[in-house]
């Protein structure tokens, strides 16, 4: 049975009509038409569907939409502000941390959640945190480098005081 639910996505309210068990991923892609989070493996193993829910990493493909109503959902589309790329997005481009780009939005959101918690990161902390995100093209070393670069940038500018 479909029900009407209120979602808060990237700071904006969205009223959606869906079955409560339908995955957050499909709801986001269907109704607000936010297709940045991608369809990957369907079992939470690849991380290409990663969004952030109340500052925690969330695999949207195995999360029922009914479980996240009223929570703050953040997708890759919310990273850029006023036409200005987030330091993570900028770092991914500058470090060449992507090939086909299909996993990138999940990588960015997973990394963002990590930087929220702890902006001063060691390489091992990044690797441990990002282990659930697969880049089949094999950009892992560049992604680690990009996260470190963004981390330095954010530390320097203390931009984390205004979380997006």
């Amino acid at each position, binding site marked *: 049975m479909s029900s009407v639910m209120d979602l808060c996505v990237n700071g904006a309210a969205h009223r959606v009509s869906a079955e409560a068990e339908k995955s957050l991923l499909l709801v986001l892609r269907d109704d607000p038409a936010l297709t940045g989070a991608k369809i990957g493996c369907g079992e939470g193993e690849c991380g290409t569907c990663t969004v952030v829910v109340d500052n925690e990493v969330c695999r949207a493909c195995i999360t029922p939409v009914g479980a996240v109503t009223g929570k703050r959902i953040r997708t890759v589309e919310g990273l850029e502000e006023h036409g200005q790329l987030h330091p993570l997005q900028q770092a991914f481009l500058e470090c060449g941390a*992507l*090939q086909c780009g299909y996993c990138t939005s999940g990588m960015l959101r997973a990394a963002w959640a990590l930087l929220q918690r702890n902006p001063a990161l060691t390489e091992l902390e990044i690797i441990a945190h990002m282990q659930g995100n697969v880049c089949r093209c094999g950009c892992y070393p560049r992604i680690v480098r990009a996260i470190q670069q963004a981390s330095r940038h954010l530390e320097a500018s203390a931009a984390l005081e205004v979380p997006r």
Partner: protein
Amino acid sequence: MSEERDTRTRPGPEPGAGQSGGGQRPLAPESDAPKIGDWLHIDTDGLITVYTGKVEVGQNIRTSLAQVVAEELCDSIDRVKLVMGDTDLTPFDPGTFGSRTSSIMAPHLRTVAASTRELLRELAARQWQVPREELCAAGGSILHPASGRSAGYGTLTKGQKINEHYNEDAPVTPPDRRTTANALRVGGRALVTGEHQYVTDLTVPGMLAGSLLRPPAFGATLRSVDTMAAEAMPDVLVVREGDFIGVVAPDASTAAGAISAVREEWHRHEEASGEDLYSYLRTHPAEPPVEDTGSLVVGRAAADLTLDTTYTAAYIAHAPPEARAAVAEWSGEKLTLWTGTQRPFGVRGELALAFDIPEEQIRVIVPDTGAAYGGKHTGDAAVEAARLARAVRKPVKVVWTREEEFAQAYVRPAGVIDVASAVRSDGSLIAWEFHNYNAGAAGIRTPYAVPNQRVAIHPTKSPLREGSYRALAATVNHFARETHMDELACALELDPLALRLRNIRESRLWAVLEAAASRFGWGMRPATDGRGVGIACGTEKNSFVATCAEVAVDPASNRVTVGRVVQAFECGTIINPDAVLLQNEGAIIQGLGGALFEEIRSGNGTILSDRLSRYRVPRFADVPKIEVVLLDRRDLPSAGAGETPIVGIAPAVGNAIFDATGVRLRSLPLVSHDSGFAV
């Protein structure tokens, strides 16, 4: 091994072979479009649009091709836009595979752009009544320094299609004056903002979602089917055309629910799998193509040592991040089809055949795609979406599930390789016999100088659906050959590097080996328990690679950790060094998966590794410290960089494991999942 795949994957005429004198004459563009305007357009504002049937699947050719055109037209890269993989807009192209973009398409577009530049000079010369020689091109304009006059390209062409033929002898920038530049990725911004629409993200008005009934095993045929329950579901349409059974619904979840409500029975054939697979492959060969050089008998008679060994490689999957997908829209007898494929024109042909309509009525469009790795040659999802869309008279999108992607797509061939070699005590090879069962032809010829050889391919009726792969059989053939070389070195008590160098006559292969060994510090390693080093080299598609690996093996569990990889790579003139580095890093990491743990398991034709939780791929923590050394050969034409960098890692790691433990592993994957290897 299907005939079709064999044709596609056989290495073509090697671009640049025999051109080491610096000849840069481009090869035929594999298309009969002779006009500049077929390939390149300049609008009234001087913006340059390039049309190529190549597709972007992550290898970053959208950038490297734009770089080449920008250089010849003396303009900045952000003034060049590429239209790629659109059968209505781009000239014919056989496909994006076989490392043909940098070797064939890039020099071709360079020629077209240089022809355009010369034409623009000619136009300006006529307009200003000055000799052409006094004019130069810079910053998107033709300049006449003597008088200070200038005219933008767009002003000169007035935005009209350029109907002049391009000139194959147009003067292109000589190799030693070409810019090698790390351009920021073209189209990168849309990828980091989530704005780019992959096929899986596309919608067209009125579009419905399709789902297909899938056979449980390779070659299974339908015995009976009951679709009544699915037909009774609201908003669901069932489409049946022979064994093709699909459903169409307003959204993907409803379509998936409807297809699972279909009840059916299948007729299945017995297919080899598991332990029986390799003996099956060896005992079911078709007629083998054999290539003989000299006499094995003569060679063996002169040998101080002979060595016979057998290697095997498992089926592996591409597991592209974006599964196969297509959106089909019919308008009368005209079909527009968006799909992620390496062969847009090939898929157009498949569709024409499937629906018996002329190719001119079909437009295939390939948006930049979520990777391929050789896995997206065919148009499976395209034909399915088009068939459903035609039946329900509405646009239909089909997105394969991850299970479909693993179980229905084709896999890299498994193979058995028997190697018999004969050497003199100084390490020189005098006989080489190489029998390849089912793995395929790419990279099968040894790059070492051996006077007496027999190289034979034995294709098999495969128990699983097989197809192309990144560098294809070159991965498996290099594993067998380079492991065998290591075994010879061990048997002769020679250094593995020295043994290779003794048998190499090709200076480019020698150069990458030396470069990799020198950066790695080969031979300077202190002996440590449980640590080992390995080396391997090879060549394919006119580029050269050498790989050194250092591994640590836990003595209790036999768990293998690859700690460091150094790879040297040479592909002629480098266009974009950072893109070539990235291809090397990515190939090493992807190759580590096939080397260590990737394996498609099957039972009687059914693929059991049918989801990511059952198919281990490399993740962050698997990545070693990687150093890549690029050799830039300005005297040689560019070759591709997406494939060859994958062939060295598996044998280098296997040889390093032997160095660490004394255990010789001759089967890929070397390690079973995370549990170490069996002794």
